[in-house]
């Protein structure tokens, strides 16, 4: 319970280096997100999946880049696996999502994909 979290299988230094490149934008975006959900209807996947909250652009952004930021890059393969489902299966990076406050959601999703891919976590379409 009080032991160090295991990040076996993840090169956390590499993850932190990727996050550091977009650190300012990531911080500002996470801070500015007002959790208003007004971005929801801009996502055609949200509209097509019976308005399931898990398809909201803000949900995808907060549960991918938000988790990476909160954990300061110290994520494990389980975290990245959950993120993979969010940023690949629930987003096609069509860049249609809008945010009234100006958060660049597609770039944040792309950042999460980059982190996952750097650790060998990505959808294996021929297998899945």
């Amino acid at each position, binding site marked *: 319970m009080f032991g160090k979290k295991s990040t076996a299988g993840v090169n956390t230094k590499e993850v932190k280096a990727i996050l550091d490149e977009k650190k300012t934008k990531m911080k*500002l975006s996470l*801070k500015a997100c*007002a*959790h208003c*959900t007004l971005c929801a209807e801009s996502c055609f996947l949200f509209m097509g999946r019976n308005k399931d*909250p898990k398809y*909201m652009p803000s949900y995808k952004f907060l549960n991918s880049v938000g988790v990476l930021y909160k954990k300061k890059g110290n994520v494990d393969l389980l975290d990245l696996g959950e993120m993979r489902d969010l940023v690949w299966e629930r987003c096609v990076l069509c860049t249609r999502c809008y945010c*009234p406050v*100006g958060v660049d959601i597609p770039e944040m999703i792309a950042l999460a994909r980059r982190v996952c891919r750097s650790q060998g976590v990505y959808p294996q379409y021929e297998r899945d």
Partner: protein
Amino acid sequence: MDFSNTFFWTFAYDFIRGPMVWIAFIVFFGGTIFQIFSLLSLTKEQTISKLTPGPGRFIPKRADNENKKDWVMWLKLSIAGVNPFMTIVSSVFHVLLIIMPIFVLGHNILLDNSFGLSIISLSEGVSDFLTIIVIVCAGIFLYRRLFVDRVKAITTWSDYLFLFLAAAPFVTGFLAYHQVFENYRLIISLHILSGELMLMAVPFTKFVHMIYLVIFRFTIVSEYSLGRGNRTW
């Protein structure tokens, strides 16, 4: 009440009414300027001719007339068209959040007494009514956070805290004006303190959307930018 207790409360009251006001405004304005530069530093200027429809500015053309823009369709597809109720509630809430502190009579009497500055003020009845509107809007936001699934999905403890912080000056101001509780000094101190905390929180918390929304909509080009934005990410 013993001497030290009285001294503390007198000191706290004088501090909240005096130096703390200056601190709050300095932090607010200084932080705002810093955050404006932070956001603009993440963007770059882009000449308008290079920005093409698609992720850039795109207003659909009317089917019957190729040269005219279809503003009705543009509005229908915007946040205002898709969520008219939330657009109205949110707009009313935010406009009153900014206007009320500037034009309420009690504040302007203080300004007049302190600096000889005389600003036009709303009547007390109108201020009272508008305060109730703000509190109702805050109540709608709270309802959404508690009961609307999609909002619940991304709500954290900080959302409740900031909603409380935004509504607190209005609630305490209403209670103080109507002298609901016997201890007027305590309520008015809470009113002043909550206003100061809210001001200081603006640049450094999610209240920064107050600044970012304006900058983003007017400078960074996108499908729904207002005006001729000439910056991009």
